[in-house]
């Protein structure tokens, strides 16, 4: 790599990192506040676990978090750690980056003359979230979630939901009377001291920032090495254009809050299905996110997410092209 290209990659890395870091901080702040305000997270465990209602509820929660996908990861982690049903937490993780006020507004601002896109983007995001949540929820939690998160989650889940082999605490082998007393004990968790909550939030931010750095390095290098015109050269071909724009969304890794403005730049050169595919896939998965997902999901689950998201988005894009072309 020439020195000029290396310098450009370094600048792109800094741009990606500095743009994403405030959104990451917003997400960590919200998850930290949630931990402080609702220490036991009882309300989280009462969210629906229904395979359809769960993801829809999770997607609807997106309206409460005006951040992009980077900010959603810590909040989704907090939901999972406090025992939220998988379907709801995954629905939130995958749909909320699109179903939030900022992203809806920016899509409208970028494409005021394409009302179909304003409907198709949120509907498509919900559809993808439903498919991914249904698919991933079929995996055992031990195969899906990162061990540290799983351990945290199992501490708050009712013992009836944790298998005997997975239990690290509980009343197995304890005096039955003591067990009854434990079961009858009030479930209200005391609010932790602010310093402890702050420490937890700091640890979370530091860990996510390291993963963000990793994702940004890869994204910056790929962007510098892969000429973008190659990806847009197939703009007119229905299927190829969708594939090319999906690849572009994986590579570019910009936040969902602003990707509509980026898409506006090449909207005229590509098919409508490809345009929608770009706007749907990026918020679910991209190179930068793969690093962040490392705090939530095991590598196989991330791979499954990526492959499934690509297939669903391809189908949606094809259907849109059949409908609009």
């Amino acid at each position, binding site marked *: 790599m020439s020195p000029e290209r290396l310098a450009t990659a370094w*600048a792109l890395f800094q741009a990606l990192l500095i743009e994403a870091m*405030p959104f990451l901080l917003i997400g960590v702040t919200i998850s930290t506040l949630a931990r402080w305000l609702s220490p036991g997270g009882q309300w989280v465990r009462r969210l629906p676990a229904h395979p359809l209602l769960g993801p829809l509820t999770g997607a609807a929660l997106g309206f409460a978090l005006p951040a992009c996908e980077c900010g959603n990861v810590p909040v989704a982690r907090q939901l999972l750690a406090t025992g939220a049903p998988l379907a709801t937490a995954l629905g939130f993780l995958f749909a909320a980056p699109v179903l939030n006020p900022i992203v809806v507004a920016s899509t409208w601002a970028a494409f005021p003359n394409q009302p179909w896109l304003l409907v198709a983007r949120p509907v498509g995001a919900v559809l993808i979230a439903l498919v991914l949540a249904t698919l991933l929820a079929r995996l055992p939690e031990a195969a899906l979630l990162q061990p540290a998160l799983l351990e945290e989650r199992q501490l708050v889940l009712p013992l009836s939901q944790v298998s005997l082999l997975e239990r690290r605490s509980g009343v197995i082998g304890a005096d039955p009377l003591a067990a009854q007393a434990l079961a009858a004990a009030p479930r209200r968790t005391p609010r932790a001291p602010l310093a402890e909550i702050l*420490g937890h939030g700091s640890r979370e931010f530091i860990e996510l920032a390291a993963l963000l750095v990793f994702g940004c390095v890869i994204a910056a290098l790929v*962007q510098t090495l892969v000429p973008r015109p190659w990806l847009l050269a197939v703009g007119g071909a229905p299927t190829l254009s969708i594939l090319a724009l999906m690849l572009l969304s994986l590579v570019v890794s910009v936040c969902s809050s602003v990707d509509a403005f*980026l898409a506006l730049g090449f909207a005229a050169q590509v098919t409508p299905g490809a345009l929608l595919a770009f706007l749907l896939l990026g918020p679910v998965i991209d190179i930068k996110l793969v690093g962040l997902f490392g705090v939530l999901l095991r590598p196989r689950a991330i791979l499954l997410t990526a492959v499934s998201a690509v297939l669903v988005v391809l189908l949606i894009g094809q259907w849109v092209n059949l409908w609009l072309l």
Partner: protein
Amino acid sequence: MTLPRRLRGGRWLRPLGLGLWGAVLLQSGISGRLDLLLRAVFHPLVWISGVVLVVVALLELVGGGGAAPTPRQRTVLLVGVVVAIAVLLVPPRPSFADLAANRDRELLDEPGLNFVVPPGQRSLTEWVRLLRSQPDPKLHAGDPVRISGFVLPVPGDRPQLARLLVRCCLVDATPVGLPVLWPPGRPLPKADQWLELRGVMDTERFDGQTRSVIRAESVRPIPRPARPLEP
């Protein structure tokens, strides 16, 4: 010198890491890097985040405690610290020509095209927008031109004078350029060089079509502007 007990066992690494990331964000604003990396609308968010991170780092330093980081957490912290220091020490110096060569050329049809601005005061981007909306080259022939931009090599053509348009950050930068008839008898300018150019708008036949071209009368090297990106 010994560390206070609350910072022993690697506990100092966390406030250091947080403080460094805060410093990275604040220093980006202070040094003007943000103008090179991000569109202005995002700058306040970066400033606020920087202040929050520094404040949290100080709170952690003063009242911190909790468990010492595990070996894995130490590694993560150290990686973060090293990268943050590298970002602080090595400023971004992108090659605009290299970046532009890797991007498709296109232009937003944004409102705000100001036809009232006299020709001599139009920026390069305003000229490109005008030529896109009123593509007849004869309409503009003879208009005075005074613009600045970087030199962008174009395969099969003379180097153009160009600017980068940005909607979010440098990552989505796309080039817009104008063809230039460079002053005869002088070598063509080097890629990535920033120039201020005075001349008149003219027409020429290129690739079987008539197009607008700037006939350069004076070319002056200038340093890269503090805000090189255009919205």
